[in-house]
C-alpha cells in the first residue's frame, strides 16, 4: 500500500480525499497556492507544499511544480481530485515516467474519452446508445445543413473541444443552422483555440442522468447505479440526487450495462462516470465519459455505502474491487446541494470575501436520516476570486425521497453563513418547489421555473403565522430580559404584556401568548391555536422551535422593534408591537426605496482604482465605467444600459462598501 499520497487539488475535494487516505492509514500531502495558505486542506494534511501564486495556471495546474512537490515530500501516489489536472493525460503520463502512481484511470482511457468526437465513436462501436448525429467533423455551413436535415430538427451544433455551454447552439430549423454554425465556430475558436464542430440531435425535455462505474486492474467492473443531475443553472449542476426518481429498473440496468461496456472498451480502471441524456420516454443517449471522481460522488456513496476514494486508492494499488455487481444495491435516497458563494437575488453574482460566520448543520447518521457536509472552508476563511466559489456540498440521506428532501430542507434552514452571500435561500426554494418534489424535472427546470430570476419565496399564510408566533415569543423574551436591568425604581417594574401585533410586510397578525416554562400557547387572530416551545435566548442567530411537534429553525437577526428572519428561501422583517405601538406605528409613512437603476453601485467592498468616464459622457451598454479593486482583483464595472453620466460620487482611491453609489446617470 502507498505510504504517502499527494492530493493535487484544493478545497473540499482535497479534504475529502485526505479523510479516506487517513482512514487507510496513508499519510497525506497537500499543495497550496499563496491564496490558500490558511486553507482547511492544508490544515488537515500531514504535510503541505507551497506551489505558487494564486492563479490556477501558476500553481495548481503547473505539472512541473507538482512533480517537484512530489519529489520534495516523497509521495508515492497522487490523487488529482476533480477539475485541475484530473483529466489531463499529460499529467498522468509524467507521473508514470517518474514512477509515481496516478490514482485514476489509465492514460489511454483519459485520452480516448477526453475527445468528444473520439469518445462518441468508441461508445457507438461498443454498443452504447448515442445521440443521433454526425460523428465526423463538419467542414462547412452547407455540410452542417445537410447533416441537420438527415438527423431531423432540432439539432445542436457544438464545439468538439467544448464544455460549459461555450460554442453551443441549438438550431430549430434550416435558417438556424447557418447562423448557429458560424457563431459556434467563432466561439469555439476563441474559447478553445479549436474550431472543430459536431452536430447532433437536440433532445427536448432532457434529463441529465449519469452512471458511476468502477473498475480495477484485473478487469472487474461494477456500476454503482445512477445520479440524476438535471437541476442545473447554465450547465452548472446545482442539485444532484441518487437514485433518479425517473428511471425504471430496466432502463437503469441497460444504462449500467452500457456504461460498463464502454469502460471495458477502453480498458478502464478506477472511478469514472458515464453521462447520459435521457428523454421523456426513457430513451437514453451517451453524452460523455468523465474519467475522474465527480463533484457529486457523495450521493452515490450514500446510497451504496461504497467509499469511492478508498476504492480508487485500492485499485491504483492493484487491489481488486471490494464488491461485485450483485452486491451493489440502492439503499435509500440521497441529495446533494451545492452551496455556492453567490447571490441568487442578484442574478447569482459571485460573492467573494471573508466568511465571518460558518456554521453548517451537524453531520450525523442515525440509520433513518443522515447529513453529510463536504467542505473546504471554515469560519474566518475566505472565498477567493481565484477559484470555484463553492462553499460546501451539503448531502442528506433518508430511506425515501420525500424524507431525504425534508432532511435537506431542515439542514439548509440551519446552515449559517455570513460575511459572504450564499445560494442557500435559492436551494431552499428548489427543495420546496412542487415540481421538484414530484420529481418532474428536466435540465431546463431552473430556467423555466425561475425565468424571472430569484427574488425569494412567498410563504403560505400558515407559515407566516408560525413565523410571526415564534418571533413574538422571542420579542417577549427579550423584552422581559430588558426589564431586569440594574438601577430600576424598586417596586415599580415594567410589566411585559402577552398580547402583541406582529407585522410582516403589510400584514398584521394579532398574537396572544399564554406562556409556560420554555414555551407558549399561542393564539393567532383568534382563529388558530399553536403550542410552541423553544430554548432560544437573545444573541442566538439560529432559533429553534417546536410547533406542535414540527421542528422549525429560523435564522434571526435583531432589528428595531423585531427581527429579520431568513427561512426557507424567504427573508422577512417581522415587527412585534403592542396594540398601542401598532396604532401609532400606522401613522408612519412607508418610505419609497430610492430608485437605484439610475446609479452604478459598487457590487462588492473594494477600492476604486479608475473612473473611465467623466460627467456628461454618453455611454453605451457594456461600456466600462469604473474599475474596482477587490481582493487584489480588478473588476471592471460596465454600463448596464445606455445613458449620460450625471455625476460621479467617488474618485480613484476611495474605498467603498457594497451598494455605495459610484456614479449617477441622467
Amino acid at each position: 500500500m502507498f505510504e504517502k499520497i499527494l492530493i493535487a487539488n484544493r478545497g473540499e475535494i482535497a479534504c475529502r480525499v485526505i479523510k479516506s487516505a487517513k482512514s487507510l492509514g496513508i499519510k497525506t500531502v497537500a499543495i497550496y497556492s499563496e491564496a490558500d495558505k490558511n486553507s482547511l486542506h492544508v490544515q488537515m494534511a500531514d504535510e503541505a507544499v507551497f506551489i505558487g501564486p494564486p492563479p490556477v495556471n501558476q500553481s495548481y495546474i503547473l505539472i512541473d511544480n507538482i512533480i517537484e512537490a512530489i519529489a520534495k515530500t516523497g509521495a508515492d501516489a497522487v490523487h488529482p481530485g476533480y477539475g485541475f489536472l484530473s483529466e489531463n493525460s499529460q499529467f498522468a503520463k509524467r507521473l508514470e515516467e517518474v514512477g509515481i502512481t496516478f490514482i485514476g484511470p489509465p492514460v489511454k482511457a483519459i485520452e480516448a474519452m477526453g475527445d468528444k468526437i473520439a469518445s462518441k465513436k468508441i461508445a457507438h462501436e461498443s454498443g452504447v446508445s448515442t445521440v443521433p448525429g454526425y460523428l465526423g467533423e463538419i467542414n462547412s455551413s452547407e455540410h452542417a445543413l445537410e447533416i441537420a436535415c438527415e438527423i431531423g430538427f432540432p439539432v445542436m451544433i457544438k464545439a468538439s473541444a467544448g464544455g460549459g455551454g461555450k460554442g453551443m447552439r441549438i438550431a430549430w430549423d434550416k435558417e438556424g443552422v447557418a447562423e448557429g454554425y458560424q457563431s459556434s465556430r467563432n466561439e469555439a475558436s476563441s474559447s478553445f483555440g479549436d474550431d472543430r464542430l459536431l452536430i447532433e440531435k437536440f433532445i427536448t425535455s432532457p434529463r441529465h442522468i449519469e452512471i458511476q462505474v468502477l473498475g480495477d486492474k484485473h478487469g472487474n467492473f461494477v456500476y454503482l447505479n445512477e445520479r440524476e443531475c438535471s437541476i442545473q443553472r447554465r450547465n452548472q449542476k446545482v442539485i444532484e440526487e441518487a437514485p433518479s426518481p425517473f428511471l425504471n429498473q430496466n432502463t437503469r440496468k441497460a444504462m449500467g450495462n452500457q456504461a460498463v461496456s464502454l469502460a471495458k472498451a477502453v480498458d478502464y480502471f478506477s472511478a469514472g462516470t458515464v453521462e447520459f441524456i435521457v428523454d421523456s420516454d426513457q430513451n437514453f443517449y451517451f453524452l460523455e465519459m468523465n474519467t475522474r471522481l465527480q463533484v457529486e460522488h457523495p450521493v452515490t456513496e450514500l446510497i451504496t455505502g461504497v467509499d469511492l476514494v478508498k476504492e480508487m486508492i485500492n485499485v491504483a494499488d492493484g487491489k481488486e474491487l471490494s464488491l461485485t455487481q450483485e452486491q451493489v444495491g440502492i439503499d435509500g435516497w440521497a441529495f446533494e446541494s451545492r452551496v455556492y458563494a453567490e447571490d441568487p437575488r442578484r442574478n447569482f453574482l459571485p460573492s467573494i470575501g471573508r466568511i465571518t460566520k460558518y456554521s453548517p448543520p451537524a453531520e450525523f447518521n442515525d440509520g433513518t436520516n443522515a447529513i453529510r457536509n463536504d467542505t473546504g472552508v471554515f469560519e474566518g476563511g475566505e472565498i477567493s476570486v481565484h477559484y470555484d466559489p463553492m462553499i460546501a456540498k451539503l448531502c442528506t440521506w433518508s430511506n425515501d425521497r420525500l424524507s431525504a428532501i425534508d432532511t435537506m430542507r431542515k439542514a439548509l434552514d440551519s446552515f449559517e453563513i455570513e460575511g459572504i452571500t450564499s445560494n442557500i435561500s435559492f436551494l431552499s426554494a428548489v427543495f420546496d418547489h412542487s415540481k421538484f418534489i414530484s420529481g418532474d424535472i428536466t435540465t431546463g427546470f431552473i430556467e423555466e421555473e425561475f425565468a424571472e430570476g430569484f427574488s425569494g419565496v412567498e410563504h403560505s399564510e400558515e407559515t407566516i403565522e408560525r413565523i410571526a408566533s415564534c418571533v413574538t415569543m422571542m420579542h417577549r423574551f427579550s423584552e422581559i430580559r430588558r426589564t431586569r436591568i440594574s438601577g430600576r425604581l424598586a417596586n415599580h417594574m415594567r410589566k411585559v404584556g402577552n398580547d402583541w401585533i406582529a407585522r410582516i410586510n403589510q400584514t398584521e397578525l394579532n398574537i396572544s401568548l399564554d406562556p409556560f416554562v420554555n414555551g407558549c400557547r399561542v393564539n393567532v387572530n383568534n382563529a388558530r391555536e399553536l403550542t410552541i416551545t423553544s430554548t432560544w435566548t437573545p444573541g442566538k442567530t439560529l432559533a429553534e422551535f417546536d410547533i406542535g411537534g414540527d421542528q422549525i429553525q429560523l435564522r434571526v437577526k435583531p432589528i428595531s422593534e423585531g427581527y429579520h428572519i431568513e427561512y426557507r428561501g424567504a427573508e422577512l422583517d417581522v415587527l412585534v408591537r403592542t396594540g398601542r405601538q401598532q396604532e401609532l406605528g400606522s401613522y408612519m409613512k412607508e418610505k419609497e426605496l430610492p430608485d437605484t437603476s439610475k446609479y452604478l453601485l459598487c457590487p462588492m467592498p473594494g477600492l476604486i482604482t479608475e473612473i473611465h468616464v467623466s460627467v456628461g459622457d454618453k455611454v453605451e451598454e457594456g461600456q466600462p465605467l469604473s474599475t474596482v479593486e477587490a481582493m487584489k482583483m480588478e473588476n471592471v464595472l460596465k454600463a448596464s444600459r445606455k445613458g449620460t453620466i450625471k455625476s460621479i460620487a467617488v474618485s480613484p482611491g476611495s474605498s467603498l462598501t457594497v451598494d455605495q453609489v459610484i456614479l449617477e446617470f441622467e
Partner: protein
Amino acid sequence: MNDIVSELERRRIEARSGGGAKRVATQHSKGKLTARERIELLLDENSFEEFDMFVTHRCTDFGMEQTKFSGDGVVTGWGTINGRMVYVFSQDFTVFGGSLSETHAAKICKIMDMAVQNQAPVIGLNDSGGARIQEGVASLAGYAEVFQRNILASGVIPQISVIMGPCAGGAVYSPAMTDFIFMVQDSSYMFVTGPDVVKTVTNEIITAEELGGASTHTTKSSVADGAYSNDVETLAEVRRFFDFLPLNNKDKSPTRPFYDDPGRIEHSLDTLAPENPNVPYDMKELILKIADEGDLFEIKENFAKNIITGFIRLEGTTVGVVANQPMVLAGCLDIDSSRKAARFVRFCDSFDIPLLTLVDVPGFLPGTSQEYGGIIVHGAKLLFAFGEATVPKVTVITRKAYGGAYDVMSSKHLRGDYNYAWPSAQIAVMGAKGAVEILYRSEINDSELVKQRTEEYEDRFANPFVAAEKGFIDEVIMPHSTRLRVCRAFATLRNKKAQNPWKKHDNIPL
C-alpha cells in the same frame, strides 16, 4: 367636590387634546406623532406622570391673551424605561408650533432641576418652530435658562436630545450641549440659520433637508449621533440606547442578564488581521465577536468611519468601545476621527463607563487640509481624553500601532490598565518603508540595500516583542481568546479607584 373632579377631568381632556384635532391630524399626515404619543412610545406603558399640565403662557402682546392652550406647547414629566427613572420633555408642535415661551421654558427647567436633584437622565423630544416671537426677550431668556441647566447638568446626568421636527436658531443650542442627539430621517432638521436667511446672506439655494436634515448631521457635520427612519423606530432605538447608560455620574454602568459565554472562543479571529499590513479588514467583526450577543450600539456610525465608537456589553455590563477601522483611510487618525472619539471617551469617563480600545492605527493623516484644519489641536483632544480618563481602560493592539497615534490610543503610558497585543501587532515609530528612508537616507538609491534594511527593520519592529520587553504591553494574547481576556480584565477592574488631581476643571484643547 364632584364639581372639581369633573372640572379636573374636563381640563385634562382639554390639555391632552393639544392644539386640537385638526392640528393633530396635520401632524399625523406628515408621518409624525404628537408630543404625548411620543412619550407613550418612549416610556414604559402607563409609567408617565405629567407635570404642569395646566400651565399657560402669560403673554398679552399681539392678542396672545386670546389664545391659550393648557401646557403651553410642551409636555413634561417623568416615567420609566424598563423600570429605570427618566425625566422627559416633549415639545408639542400642534400648540403654537411648539414655540418656546417663558412658561414653556420654565416647565423644561423644572424637570431638569428635578432630574439633577434626583439623579436621573433627561430626554428631550424636540419639535419646535423656535422662539415664541410674541414674547420677545422673555422667550430668549427662557432658552438661556434651559442652556444654563444643560451646562450644569452636563457630566452629572446623561442628557439625550431627540430631534423630531424643526429645531432652528437658538433652539439648537440646548441639544448641542446635551450628550447625544438623535434625529428622525426626512422629518427633522436643525440649523442656526434657515434656508431663507442663507439665501439672503450668501445666495446659496438649499433645502432645509440638505442644510440641516438627518443625513447632513450624521454624515457631514457630526452634530447628530444617529438617525432612524421614523418616529416609532427612533423612539424604540432611544429606549435601546438608554439601557446602555448609567442614570448619573455616581451610578455604575448598568448591568442586565446576558446569554453569552464570557469564555467564548472565536477561532475565526486568528485570521482576521491579514499578514500584509496594507490589506484592510473590518474591525467591526472583532467588536461584534467580543461583545455579548454580538450587540453594538454605534455612535456617529456614518461620520469619520475611520474610527468606530459605540457601546457594547461584557458580562451584561456596558462598556464603551473605541476602535480604529482599517477599512476606511487605513484607520488613521484625522481631525474628524479624533474629535469623534474624544467626545465619546469623555462621555464614558464622565459616567464611569469602562473603555475598550482596539488599535490598528498607521498614524495621523498627513496633508495641508489636516494641518490647516488644526489636527494638532484636534488630535490632542483624543490624547487628552484618554489620558484624563480614570475609568477601567483595556486596550488591544491588533496590528499597527505607529508613532504618536500609538501613544494616543489608550496606551500604557496614558494609564491604560491592561494593554494587550495580538501576535500580529507591530508597535513602532512608523512603518518599515518610512523608517528606512529616514534612518538610511544615504543608501536610498541602492534598492538592494534598502530592501535589506527594510527587512532588518521589520524583523526588529514588526512584532509586539519590543514593546512587550519594555512592559508597554502587558501580554501578547491570541486573537481567538480576545473576548475571554478582555472580560477577565474588566472583571478585575470593577473596583478600580483612580483620581485626577483636584482642579476647577481641566483645559482640554477645545
